[in-house]
């Protein structure tokens, strides 16, 4: 009856392993699928009930509820318990352990982008490596990058960041008339600098978008994006008069956090529930969203609800602007919503849901490029068709 596509069957299999037999409010998720860093078996990751990426985002930007707190405490105790077992493993997985651990340490900082955390972790790999030739170092890095990517398959900027760094390493090592140590130290230095690059990227994007925010405009924002926050902050500092309509962004409710931040800057903010977007779209002048990843077609992958907003905006002829750093460009080409690997995030409805009732827990959706007007990136203000161009230049 519901057989729309083969991916339906794929989803169903995954959903089956996720939900426990009886009703739950919020899951402290079943122990087998908790996303602890010490998960050595890559296969198990695919059946994870939770996307670590979206969990982290919620941790950074979401509202802290008591349920979440309980869940995180449980996760922490579990980490301590299982942590000891992993060290017993041999050297190779020990190194993989440290990459992922390193990555998690960096990722915990709320202001740091995913790709930056990944590249910093890879820099740590270089620092700790005992390789004597570029080839060896490259192989080590490849292994570390693969383990990072497989640990969290749902995070696009993580994958893109790793790929970008690997590409850079390969190209740099092609200059053979340098000695190994200087090449290595330069790699480490560039990797550390990448953090600055990412921070500068946000500033550049904020500067580029200032011209598009005119006095008296109304901006619709979805959820919490650090880049969009930077854009709005700079506009407020430049004494522009504008107001922001902010969606709540269920289930993370990260919109509430954004509303708080904007209120601190004395920007008039109005909160909407996600369903009120079409209702208020006629008073909106432009829509501003961030992106978790920018795919090859020029579309974006972002928090659930972005596609909906883009569709409504497009039908009412409102421009949709995306603010994304260039290292989020990924070599993916989803043809429909289910083409990407599922990134699931449990939803707290506040009341018990009977087990027979399925819940759509995907945390993200794909917005095709025809609904986007312009992309603000640190490479400049671009139309969506530029993305594939840049990716071809990088990977060819």
């Amino acid at each position, binding site marked *: 009856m519901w057989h729309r596509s083969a991916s339906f069957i794929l989803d169903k299999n995954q959903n089956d392993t996720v939900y426990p037999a009886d009703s739950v409010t919020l899951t402290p998720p079943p122990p087998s699928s908790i996303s602890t860093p010490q998960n050595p078996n890559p296969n198990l990751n695919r059946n994870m009930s939770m996307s670590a990426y979206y969990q982290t985002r919620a941790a950074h930007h979401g509202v802290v509820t008591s349920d979440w707190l309980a869940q995180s405490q449980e996760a922490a105790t579990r980490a301590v318990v299982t942590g000891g077992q992993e060290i017993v493993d041999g050297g190779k997985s020990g190194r993989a352990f440290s990459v992922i651990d390193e990555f998690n340490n960096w990722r915990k900082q709320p202001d740091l982008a995913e790709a930056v955390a990944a590249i910093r972790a890879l820099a740590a790999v270089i620092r700790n490596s005992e390789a004597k030739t570029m080839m060896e170092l490259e192989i080590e890095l490849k292994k570390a990058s693969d383990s990072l990517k497989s640990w969290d398959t749902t995070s696009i900027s993580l994958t893109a960041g790793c790929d*970008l*760094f690997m590409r*850079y390493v390969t*190209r*740099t090592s092609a*200059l053979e*008339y*340098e000695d190994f140590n*200087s090449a290595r130290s*330069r790699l480490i230095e*560039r990797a550390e*600098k*990448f953090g600055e*690059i990412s921070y*500068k990227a946000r*500033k*550049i994007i904020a*500067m580029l978008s200032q*011209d*598009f925010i*005119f006095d008296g405009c109304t901006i619709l924002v979805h959820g919490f994006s650090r880049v969009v926050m930077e854009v709005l902050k700079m506009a407020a500092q430049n004494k522009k008069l504008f107001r922001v309509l902010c969606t709540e962004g269920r289930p993370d409710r990260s919109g509430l956090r954004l509303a708080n931040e904007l209120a601190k800057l004395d920007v008039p903010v109005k909160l909407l529930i996600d369903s009120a977007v079409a209702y208020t779209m006629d008073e909106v002048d432009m829509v501003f969203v961030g992106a978790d990843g920018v795919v090859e077609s020029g579309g974006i992958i972002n928090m659930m609800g972005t596609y909906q907003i883009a569709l409504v905006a497009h039908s009412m002829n409102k421009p949709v602007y995306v603010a994304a750093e*260039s*290292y989020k*460009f990924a070599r993916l080409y989803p043809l429909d919503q289910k083409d990407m690997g599922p990134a699931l995030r449990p939803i707290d409805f506040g009341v018990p849901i009977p087990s027979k009732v399925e819940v759509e827990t995907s945390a993200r959706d794909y917005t095709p490029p025809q609904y986007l007007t*312009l992309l603000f990136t*640190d*490479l*400049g*203000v*671009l*139309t*969506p*068709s*530029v993305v594939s*161009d*840049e*990716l071809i*230049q*990088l990977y060819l």
Partner: protein
Amino acid sequence: MPDTQALVMTFLTSLKNATARQTAELLRSVISQQRVPYTNQAGALIDAVKAVGEQLIAANPVELAVGNIVRRVLHIIREEDLSLTTAAIGELNLSAVSDDENDDDRDGNTTLSAAAVAAAARSTLRPPSLQTLLEDTPVSAAVPQTSSSGAADKSSRSRKLKHDVIEAVNELIQDIVTCHEQIAEQAVEHIHQNEVILTLGSSRTVSEFLFAAKEKKRSFRVFVAEGAPRYQGHLLAKELVARGLQTTLITDSAVFAMISRVNMVIVGAHAVMANGGVIAPVGMNLVALAAQKHAVPFVVLAGSHKLCPLYPHNPEVLLNELRSPSELLDFGEFSDCMDFGSGSGSPLLHVVNPAFDYVPPKLVSLFITDAGGHNPSYMYRLIADYYSADDLVVQRRAIAGN
């Protein structure tokens, strides 16, 4: 400098058509008369051009071609400087390889690693891209090195920079002058036998385009919308008939009625914005919408000097110019309606005569420039080739920075 000031003043008072070429020629004389110091010649040239450019743009902001040419010249200066610097680095490195002991004394020369040289050797000024995201900017580090080299080098380099820049500006002027021919060469690919072409108003590029197709023995018909209130379509119709083309003259309001009989719409543009939108004579948006409704290709002809790196939302861009109402109304008949003295002291009749229209990129099928035919979504590429990001705001600043 007083010479150039006088030139600038006469130019400002006579800003009319063919401004792009005149701007380029003016900037060429500014550059050739500019005295450059030994160090940082490019900076001095850029400052001089920016100073004049500011005045030119402020004098007539609607004429976007002026700003475009100013930015093109700035980009040329930066590019020539970069290629000269990288050539100098190349020479320096060769000499560095030959006597190693001396190099250790000179600070920094040995740190010009192979990678930096290779990167600098890519001597074109490329726009930022994913490839260069993780890399250093090699040139800014390298420039202090070269200034420590011999003095004889420097004076020849300074003359060379000016010479190169002026050569490049001459090429630019040539391009501007010959853009009509280059666009017209592509006419045969687009206009086929027994087609019906629609155009609005009169544009030299469009007429050259159509004449070129006629030369190649294509037989086609042209509908010309008259282009109120200036009625330049009448002039175009006359020219076309003189060349032996079957022409039909219609009013602007009749475009929707006639569009279903048309195979292609070919129009000129006043300016092309960075998002692919077009600023065109008034009435063009109407034609574009009609073309979209009936799935007729809407082709815009524009020389590359009309390509503007700014977006239409940019406050610097004046999308329109309001002209005199006398083009619409005869003052004699309507003088009492527009009289300030009658009644409450302000006239009840207002006459608005905008000169331009904005056509959004999604209505345009193809841009034909002297660099070939392109999609509206490809415009960013041409802009990245012709302009530098630092020049978007043409203002002299004490500290150039991002």
